[in-house]
């Protein structure tokens, strides 16, 4: 059969196959090999082993037979080679057929004027193509307000679906779901089903509440109810009537919440219990502000989880497990600062803070030990800084370097692990000031921080990394009553922002001495990396590293 007689639906699909589409189905390596093989094939069907028939297209490449059932789609492809799904033979076969499809002219009378396949009236067929179990799962997930970005382009429906990780779905207009791809690589998956249902919902063709009326599983509702009952009992008897039994039940609920995939609720409850335990054991006097600020976000989230559909995504209400690491490759970073720290919970560590210019996100790598472990093994953050390495690079060499994580592991909260197999390369040149994510306007910083606060008024934002350009500093002040050291900083417009250190341990005391010495030597801050946080209604900076006016070298304050 001549190429001109190729099934027009198949020809349209073949023409839609660009590099991105083929990579989403296979991978870049297979695409490269497949293209090389395709380029070696003769240009005309008569001179190749390829046949284009009314029901199927076939070829024999490298001694293996390839088949594509009409009207096409990745699910209709097969190759006799040992590869499980995609192989470079099939890529070459598709690229060859694509060349033939270029000469096929669509009959204008057959041109699609109806709705795209994902908005088809035949919902039963769509459900079957997506897979019934995935379809049902997607129906429930849609009630959990997942983050789905849809882009209805001329050739396909493109969707970015966030479900712990972000997945990219592409559903071609020609063949629809049967030729769809997802970055999870599964033939059928919940992400494709979510993309279709979200598109239908957007078009007014699907009502998530029509088939289901509960966003969570019954086990999850049970946990929400247990947590609510516990809080009711707590505020019913008041802090004056605290009992050991109530707190023990609370501890058990922390585990229950984690198991129900509610890590944020578990963490909020754990923080609350820590304060209540201290109060009951007489270790510290319970400040009501601490109780209020921990109870409110927990109660607010539990009430939101009772609503259907959820008012915010399940991830933002209940959190996601952060310690699930996934492979990351070719991640370009600027290492901005290094920090030795000690926590109130009895840990010490060394953290490297990195900035990704491509995404504007912050990453960190941490080496930490419990204080007992550190003492027993003669480990310290300073010793780690001097003698240890990450992915083949010495820690002390990394600040202000441009690095590439060739291969590493990343958690959802951008923690980079140090596990074996991590490979980091550095070009050993110092990052220039122009490459830094400099904040020069302190009023704007305050406004941005305020907007983050307004986004979730029940849960104050955590510390935010920032690199400040400082125009002027004033003499440091030490508040001996509260053990707080501070130094006023100003931007070029004269807007103030105080740098503060709470002298809670030896590490911060050493930082204070270093900063005081700089002031006595007449050295003024020029650029500083640190953490922004709120104290009352004032924004403050916890400094980590800085560079003084007229000096090229950065000082890592805690090292």
């Amino acid at each position, binding site marked *: 059969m001549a190429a001109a007689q190729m099934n027009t639906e198949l020809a349209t699909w073949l023409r839609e196959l660009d590099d991105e589409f083929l990579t989403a189905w296979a991978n870049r390596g297979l695409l490269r090999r497949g293209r090389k093989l395709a380029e070696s094939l003769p240009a005309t069907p008569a001179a190749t082993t390829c046949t284009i028939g009314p029901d199927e297209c076939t070829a024999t490449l490298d001694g293996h037979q390839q088949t594509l059932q009409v009207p096409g789609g990745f699910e209709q492809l097969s190759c006799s080679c040992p590869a499980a799904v995609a192989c470079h033979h099939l890529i070459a076969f598709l690229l060859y057929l694509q060349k033939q499809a270029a000469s096929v002219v669509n009959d204008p009378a057959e041109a699609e004027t109806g709705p795209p396949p994902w908005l088809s009236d035949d919902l039963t067929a769509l459900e079957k193509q997506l897979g019934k179990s995935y379809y049902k799962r997607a129906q429930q997930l849609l009630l959990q307000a997942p983050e789905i970005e849809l882009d209805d382009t001329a050739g396909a429906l493109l969707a970015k679906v966030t479900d712990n990780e972000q997945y990219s779905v592409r559903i071609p207009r020609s063949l629809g779901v049967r030729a769809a791809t997802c970055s999870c690589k599964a033939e059928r998956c919940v992400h494709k089903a979510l993309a279709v249902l979200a598109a239908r919902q957007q078009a007014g063709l699907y009502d998530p509440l029509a088939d289901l009326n509960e966003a969570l599983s019954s086990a999850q509702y049970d946990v929400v109810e247990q947590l609510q009952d516990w*809080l*009711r*009992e707590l*505020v*019913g*008897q*008041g*802090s*004056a*009537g605290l009992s050991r039994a109530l707190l023990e039940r609370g501890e058990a609920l922390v585990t229950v919440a984690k198991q129900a995939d509610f890590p944020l609720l578990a963490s909020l409850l754990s923080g609350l219990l820590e304060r209540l335990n201290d109060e009951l054991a007489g270790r510290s006097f319970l400040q*009501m502000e601490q*109780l*209020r*600020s921990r*109870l*409110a*976000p927990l*109660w*607010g989230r539990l*009430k939101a989880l009772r609503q259907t559909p959820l008012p915010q995504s399940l991830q933002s209400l209940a959190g996601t497990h952060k310690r699930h690491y996934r492979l990351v490759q070719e991640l370009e970073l600027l290492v901005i600062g290094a920090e030795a720290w000690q926590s109130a919970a009895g840990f010490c560590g060394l953290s490297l803070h990195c900035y990704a210019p491509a995404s504007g996100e912050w990453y960190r790598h941490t080496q930490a030990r419990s204080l007992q472990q550190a003492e027993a093994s003669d480990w310290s953050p300073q010793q780690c800084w001097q003698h240890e390495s990450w992915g083949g690079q010495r820690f002390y060499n990394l600040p202000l370097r441009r690095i590439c994580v060739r291969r590493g592991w990343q958690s959802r909260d951008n923690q980079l692990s140090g596990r074996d197999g991590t490979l980091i390369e550095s070009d050993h040149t110092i990052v220039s000031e122009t490459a830094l994510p400099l904040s020069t306007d302190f*009023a704007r910083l*305050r*406004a941005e*921080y*305020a*907007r983050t*606060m*307004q986004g979730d*008024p*029940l849960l*104050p934002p955590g510390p935010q990394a920032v690199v400040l350009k400082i125009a002027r500093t004033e003499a440091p002040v030490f508040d001996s009553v509260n053990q707080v050291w501070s130094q006023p900083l100003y931007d070029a417009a004269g*807007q103030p922002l105080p740098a503060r250190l709470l002298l809670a341990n030896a590490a911060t005391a050493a930082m204070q001495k270093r900063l005081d010495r700089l002031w006595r030597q007449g050295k003024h801050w020029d650029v500083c990396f640190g953490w922004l946080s*709120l104290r*009352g*209604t*004032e*924004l403050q900076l916890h400094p980590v590293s800085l560079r003084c006016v007229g000096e090229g070298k950065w000082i890592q304050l805690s090292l």
Partner: protein
Amino acid sequence: MSDTLQHWLDSWEQCLDLWLECGAATPSPQARQRLQDWAELSASAGWHEVQALAAVLLDNSAAATAKADALLDLLSWQQCTRRIIEANQLQTG
């Protein structure tokens, strides 16, 4: 922030602290009186949602669960209001 708003927010906070300490099930006479005063202040300022929650807490015939829910809701409202005001203050410098 105006003095009136500051006073209303502060007295709301003090009220909640008294109730969180003695518990919604067994409020002290002082806690009840403070809440009564604050509820009247809220009603005159047009904050009927929070006034209704206070009324549940002050209702002797209300169920223990309803009272606990009302106290926790009042607390959530208060924390939200304070944070939004703080954010506005931060934004306006």
